[in-house]
């Protein structure tokens, strides 16, 4: 992998990867701000700021911004999650300068017009309402809130409705000015380019931007959980769901890789490799325990690499005429088994083979390559991704047993049931 990594004088971290498979380039700017940096009263603010960044600057007004990229055959988008807000453009390589121009400009000169803030408030609320139509969103929101009573990972990125109704333009602008600065950002580029030339372009567009004098540290730490927590959500979705959420370590913790293998054995396919696509999980232990036994329609798991300890989630869709309790019981029996007996060598080998394939899929497109450069830099550094397979390969059967006994214990667990109540 031909990669250049450096830091500009103003603190901007830059990663550039040459990849000459197609005449396109993907340019990403990552800010180290997300729902992790929010508190009650301003939950959802990072995501809302992301929306406001599409409302433009003096030089790049609203419509000109997205239309210019579209006109050149590119696309742009943005995402906000726990630890980051990111913006990206993928374009024909000879037009990539447009991405640098736009992103450098809106790093410090976004307008936050009062009328635009008002129009976007209803759009954001509509986005939340759309999510509320999904029973799994409602369940996940309650489970996370119960699992975290101190750390901001306990609220969803979209934010609480009351905060979306009351936040002001000044709140949003203050958040923007606090966190949007070169010394709190990462530029990640991959594509058909010359790394040296790209670095010079980045210096030209971003080099003169002033760093922020102080990025507020996020100091909250979730205290250890001292007993199982339970939540119930009732609604009229026609289907019941079960979620088990265990506190899991941060991305840089050595146990994360053992937990990745454990999750693969339990529910299939290297869940910490976000965005690599789905494999079926029909030979996983939990599938056999609840789907083959005709208790659940499906079961899946997620382990998201984050800056701070987060949750390892297992979710199952209860079949009609079956009870959520039955599904939970069957899931927990499998979890006890994996704590009692080591997994087999074959299971370990299979998990590693699956990770190898998923890793190959995850770096297939240029856009995905740039995604991983930046994403891994947010919670660790790019070597996390580069060494992913070798670290996974080093995991032993004993490491997996240790991870199961350390993390999948009842005291560390929040159980959520979604009960469908026909009105």
């Amino acid at each position: 992998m031909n990669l250049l990594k450096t830091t500009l004088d103003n603190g901007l971290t830059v990663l550039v990867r040459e990849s000459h498979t197609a005449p396109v380039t993907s340019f990403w700017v990552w800010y180290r701000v997300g729902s992790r940096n929010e508190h009650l009263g301003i939950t959802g603010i990072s995501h809302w700021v992301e929306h406001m960044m599409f409302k433009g600057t003096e030089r790049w007004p609203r419509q000109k911004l997205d239309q210019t990229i579209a006109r050149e055959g590119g696309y742009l988008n943005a995402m906000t999650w726990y630890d980051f807000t990111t913006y990206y453009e993928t374009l024909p390589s000879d037009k990539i300068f447009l991405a640098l121009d736009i992103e450098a400009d809106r790093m410090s000169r976004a307008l936050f017009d009062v009328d635009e803030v008002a129009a976007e408030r209803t759009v954001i609320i509509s986005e939340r309402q759309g999510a509320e139509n999904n029973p799994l969103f409602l369940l996940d929101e309650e489970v996370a809130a119960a699992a975290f009573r101190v750390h901001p990972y306990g609220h969803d990125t979209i934010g609480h409705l009351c905060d979306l109704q009351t936040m002001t333009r000044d709140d949003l602008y203050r958040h923007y000015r606090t966190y949007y600065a070169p010394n709190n950002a990462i530029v990640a580029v991959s594509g058909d380019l010359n790394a040296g030339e790209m670095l010079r372009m980045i210096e030209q567009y971003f080099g003169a931007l002033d760093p922020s004098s102080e990025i507020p540290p996020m100091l909250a730490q979730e205290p250890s959980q001292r007993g199982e927590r339970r939540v119930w959500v009732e609604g009229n979705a026609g289907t019941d769901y079960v979620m088990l959420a265990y506190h899991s370590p941060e991305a840089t913790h050595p146990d994360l890789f053992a937990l990745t293998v454990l999750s693969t054995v339990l529910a299939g396919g290297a869940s910490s490799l976000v965005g690599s696509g789905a494999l079926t999980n029909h030979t996983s232990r939990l599938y056999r325990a609840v789907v083959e036994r005709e208790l659940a329609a499906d079961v899946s798991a997620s382990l998201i690499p984050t800056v701070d300890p987060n949750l390892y989630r297992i979710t199952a869709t209860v079949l009609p005429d079956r009870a959520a309790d039955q599904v939970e019981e069957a899931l927990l029996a499998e979890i006890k088994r994996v704590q009692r007996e080591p997994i087999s060598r074959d299971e370990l080998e299979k998990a590693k083979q699956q990770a190898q394939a998923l890793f190959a899929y995850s770096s297939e497109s240029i856009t995905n390559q740039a995604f991983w450069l930046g994403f891994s830099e947010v919670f660790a550094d790019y070597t996390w991704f580069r060494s992913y397979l070798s670290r996974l390969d080093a995991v032993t059967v004993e490491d997996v047993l240790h991870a199961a006994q350390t993390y999948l214990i009842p005291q560390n667990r929040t159980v959520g049931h979604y009960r469908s109540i026909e009105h």
Partner: protein
Amino acid sequence: MPLTRMQRALPGPDDTLRETLPNGITVLARENFASPAVVIHGYLEAGGEDESLDQLGLANFTLDVMERGTHRRSFEQLYTEVEAVGASFGLGAGSHLTTFTGKSLAKHLPMLCDVISDVLRNPAFPNEQVTRARGEILSAIRELKHNTRAMANEVFHTLIYPENHPYHWNNIGREDTIASISREALVDFHKRFFTPRGMVIAIVGAVKVEEALKAVKITFADWDKERPTRTPLPPVPPLRECIRKEVPIPDKTQSDLVLGWVGPPRRSADFMTCHLANTVLGTFGMMGRLGETVRSQNGLAYYVYSRVDGGTGPGPWRAIAGVDPNNVDRTVTLILQEIQKLREELIPAGELADSKSYLTGSLPLHLETNEGVAQALTNIERYDLGLDYLQRYRATIEAITATEVQAAVQRWMDTAQYAVAIAGPELGKSH
């Protein structure tokens, strides 16, 4: 006109293998050694169109069980073999076609081809898997009934297509038909309709095209079977009035709405013109004119866009939005106003040029992945577009005039006679 560097990067006749085997299977293959992966994407002619109304969902049910074991491999053996190496495969049911997909590291392509061939040709339909699939489909139907987006779409199709047309129905089936379909019906459906006639298989990735062709020949060349002839699709009468249907779904906070008409089939001479018109209306930039009006200026929706499907038959042309229940009527009015404007006024030259530029420029980005290329190749084959289609694409789009776009909108989108389906909280009772 010489090809530009961007155009040369697109799949074309020079770097795509195309060969039709004696049994009717067309093989397409293209190399991409950027990553060590390979994908398979293909289809054969078996789908919802081949099932009767009292067995609605039969095609989808059959595919679901086909994925669960063959005469050579039990469910356990099948998935142990595939999952052990991080590969995957799947079948999907459409109105006309069964699609199949597969993905693996390139070195496992022979295994992947063998598995897909086995599943398509030798399914065992084990009794216990029929029972399990039935339960899972019933669960999925229940979930759909509470999904506002899915319900608005399902109801919209019932408004614009007559009952004797396959597009009227959701091919997942109904609870009563799924409950009553027997194992024998699944076996019979497979026996009658799964044949190599008209089958297409595209293989794209880190495999030499000769190797890809060889893998298909080894696993499919000895399959030979006829299938019953299909009757032509029934005609779709145009709408004679505005039809509006609301589906109340309790315990929801947002309404989804689908507004539109029957559109042109993919092979229609009008399709590309409609595609360009649709880009202006509901795609370009942040969801075209609809996004600008409904979302950006009025803040009514998080998503609002439009799409024209094309397809074998006349797929729909529709606008789709998720809005606060109190804003449904206002959103419908704004969508209709934008369409009316397209009917009455020529699109300004600059705006049309922007949309053309977007369509032609973004082509390489849609083809960034092996899946994207494989899908493009199977589409080219399905609709007889020619292997040079992607390289001709720019010229095709550039040739469309504003007058043609206006005429197409006038032909297909009659703002006095449209259908709209709304699913969500009961209107008038929310908030």
